[in-house]
Every structure is written in structure tokens, then in C-alpha cells.
């Protein structure tokens, strides 16, 4: 959305919404800054656009109702560092991104290792030609899930 359109739509609404582009290496530092400001991690999500990941970590200020989204662009095999040490409840969001998009995230404090949603297809939200990766956590399918997949294929 253009900034002009966003301003028009949110005119009269309390709380500004901004998207701040950052580098993957800055994520943890920025998360610490958000924590120090007393902001709440509101959501984190991922999308695959123009052959790269668009990763969004959104922080809400419950007093001013402002909404700040940190935006990271990453390649298919890039790895980002979890912020679950700073915001423990980021773990669910990060597990979800890892499982649905195959995004590699290291040091998640509660890592389900691709078994949060128990989906047979690896990285189902990616285009099919992008699903196979050669290394990293997304490539390591848990043995029981892989086994169940084989059995289902045989049937």
C-alpha cells in the first residue's frame, strides 16, 4: 500500500502503523530496543514474494496504540536468529514460519522441529520448486513424520 493510501485509511484512527526495513543481523538488537521501550510483540509472520522471504515482526504500544513492524528480506537458504530469548512467546510464531515456509531460524527456545502442525508436506506455503533445501533445520524432517508420509504414499 502506498504511504498516502495508508495515511488516508488510518486518518481519524488512533495509533500509527509503520513498517521499518532492517537487516537480518539487526533483528535481535532491534527486538531488545522494542523490549526496553515496553512494546508487546503482537505478531510475526512470513511471506514469499519475488523469490525471497518477507519476514515481519510487529510490536504494539498499548498506550499510544502505535504499531511498528520490523521487515526483513531474506533468501531461501538464509538463516535468521530467533528473538525468543527476548520475547519468549515469539517461539510459536517462529516455529510456524519455520514449518510453513521452511525459513531457517536458529536458537528458538521452544523448538518443535517441524512438528508444530504435523504437516506431511515440507514448507507447504512455498512454491513447489522452492520446497527442497539441502541443509538447515527445515531439511531435517522428523523420523516419525517422514515414516508416516511414506506409509501414506504407499497406500
Amino acid at each position, binding site marked *: *500500500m502506498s504511504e498516502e493510501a495508508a495515511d488516508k485509511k488510518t486518518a481519524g484512527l*488512533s*495509533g500509527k502503523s509503520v513498517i521499518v526495513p532492517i537487516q537480518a543481523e539487526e533483528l535481535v538488537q532491534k527486538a531488545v530496543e522494542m523490549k526496553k521501550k515496553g512494546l508487546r510483540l503482537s505478531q510475526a509472520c512470513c511471506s514469499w514474494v519475488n523469490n525471497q522471504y518477507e519476514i515481519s515482526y510487529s510490536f504494539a504500544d*498499548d498506550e499510544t496504540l502505535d504499531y511498528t*513492524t520490523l521487515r526483513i528480506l531474506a533468501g531461501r537458504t538464509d538463516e535468521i536468529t530467533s528473538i525468543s530469548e527476548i520475547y519468549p*512467546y515469539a517461539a510459536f510464531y517462529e516455529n510456524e514460519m519455520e514449518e*510453513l515456509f521452511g525459513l531457517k531460524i536458529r536458537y528458538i527456545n521452544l523448538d518443535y522441529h517441524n512438528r508444530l*502442525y504435523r504437516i506431511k508436506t515440507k514448507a507447504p506455503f512455498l512454491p513447489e520448486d522452492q520446497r527442497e533445501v539441502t541443509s538447515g533445520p527445515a531439511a531435517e524432517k522428523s523420523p516419525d513424520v517422514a515414516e508416516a508420509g511414506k506409509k501414506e504414499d504407499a497406500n
Partner: protein
Amino acid sequence: MGKKSVIPFGPQHPVLPEPIHLDLVVEDERIVEAIPNIGFIHRGLEGLAPDRDFQKYLYVVERTCGICSFGHGLGYVESIEGIMNVEVPERAKYLRVVWAEMARMTSHLMWLGFTADAFGFESLFYEAWRIREKVLDLMEMTTGGRLIYSVLKVGGVLKDITPDMQKKILDDLNEIEKETREMTRTFLDDYSVKTRLVGVGVLTKQQAHDVGACGPMARASGIVCDMRMRGYEAYADLGFEPVVSQDGDSYARCEVRINEIFASIELVRRAFERMPKEGDLAVTVKGNPDGEYFARIEQPRGEAIFYSEGHGKPALDRFRLRTPTFANLQALCETLKGAEYADVPILILTIDPCISCTER
């Protein structure tokens, strides 16, 4: 100090209405730690967005859950209207508020019934659900549906509420308010109910902030956070004030939800008073979404985030829905720490879990 053991709880359990699994680390009947596990009924509805026309995808989003369906539809159309810079007609904004608040009432009344059932007060469960039926009847009269309403569209609403219907709604709301007040006396003053709720599962204001709680869960701990304060749709004109409590226990969470029912009734009355007497219900929307937008609305269970991203094609490239239960799971684990094993069902219920939404 006793021996620690791990008790698996759910996803199938007689007292659990929702399929969530918890590994409870227990010591002497007290919970030391709770490790949540979801994903048993994940449906991948977000994954359908790139395969559907953005107008038709609204009906998928509404079907995320049968309790919050109106809110999901509302958040989705807000996100698309945000991208396309669509100004919704004033009358449609008020109608959206009326339906959103009545949907909130049905959700909270349902929760009250479940909670009464969880602490073994079955007649109270029936009473809450009997009152809820009346609200559902009003929804059916105005939208044609009791759970999935399909009355929204990008750019406005599909149906109107006629003056006759308004009169019927206002009359019925008087009755619903009276009956809910009577029921409230039992929920908030009865000795046996208080024994099960007061001081159980305390979440302090600081803890609620630290675990990212939202909705009634956060407001019961003294956090003044309600997305309706942003003034989306017609809320800015209705003098909305959030319902907050300070104690942070199960009783406070019950109290907040009950008072929110009365607040919703008042908002519906004000909406009918201030709604333009006539006007368009929708504007024509041309083109396809090109851009991205985060819409934040207040669902019955708390803040819900709707993120849509499109690049000029009929289908969105990405739709993401962050549900309040997803955010409140960590708060649940925090309240379970130190709780007695027998209180686990009540504590799970007090976050008002909607795993159907969470497993969208």
C-alpha cells in the same frame, strides 16, 4: 518435596472443549511447568489465499471459526479496504458495529456457559446458553445465519437492518440485559462459584505484559488494551470505553467478560441512535489489491491481526491471521504455574481458547 511427573493433558479430554495438548509437569498435585502443543487440526486456510479471488476468499476467512466468524470477516475486509483505500459508507460502519457487538455477546455468553459447566454448575450453563439463543435469533433475523453470517463485503455490507428490526432488537436487548443481570448475581456473588474462581490462576499486570496477553485476559489483569479504542468502523463516534479489572484471577476474567456483554448492549443502542437514517450500504470496489496492510480489530477473545498482501492480481499473495488465542497460549502457561491440578480445566477455559481459530 515430591517427585516430579509429567501428565499429558488433551487433546482429547472430557473437560476440554478444544483440541489442545499440554504436558503438565506436576509436583505434589501442583503444576510446575506447562508445555503447550497445538497443531492437531491445522487446516491451512491461509494457504488458500493465493488460489482464490480476494472477494470470494472472504467466505473462507469467515469459516475460520463458527464463533468469531463475523470478526474474522470484518478484519479481512478492513485489511483489503486498507490496501485499496476504500471508504465505507457511514451507515455500513454502524451496521458492522451492531453485528460485531452482538457476535461478541454470543461468544461471551457461550464462554460463561462453558465455564459454569466446568465448575459443575449445570443449571447456570443452561441459563447462559438460553440467553445466547436470543442473541443468535437476532443475528439470524438480520443476517440470515446463526453462526456464519456472510453479510459483509469489501466496501460495505450486503444487508440492512430495517426500522422494524431495530425495534425488535432493542426490545429483545432490554430483556437480554435484564436476564443477564440476574444471571450475573450467581456468577459473581455465589459462594461456590467464587470458591472456584477467586484467587485461581492469578496473572499480574506485569506478567500479562511480559507474556503478551491480549483481550479480556489482559484487561482482567489491569492492562487497558482494546483495539476498539483505535476507533475503527464507527467506534470513534460511540464513546467506547474498555472494561478493565485489576485482580488478574479467574474471577476477574469472568467479571470482565460479563461487563463486556453489558457494554456491547450499550454500544448497539448507541449505534442505532447515531446511525444515519438512510444511506448506501456499500461502495463499488474496482481493481485488485496492490499493497499490504495490517488490520487490527478486537475480537471477543482479544486483538486479532489480519495481514493481507497483494500485487495487483485477483488473488492475494499472502493472507495471515493472528488470532487472540495464539497470543494467549503463553499467558495460559504462566497462569498454570503453581496452580493445583484440579484447576487446570478452569484455567484453560479462562483464556477462552478457540483452537479452531488458532489452527486456521
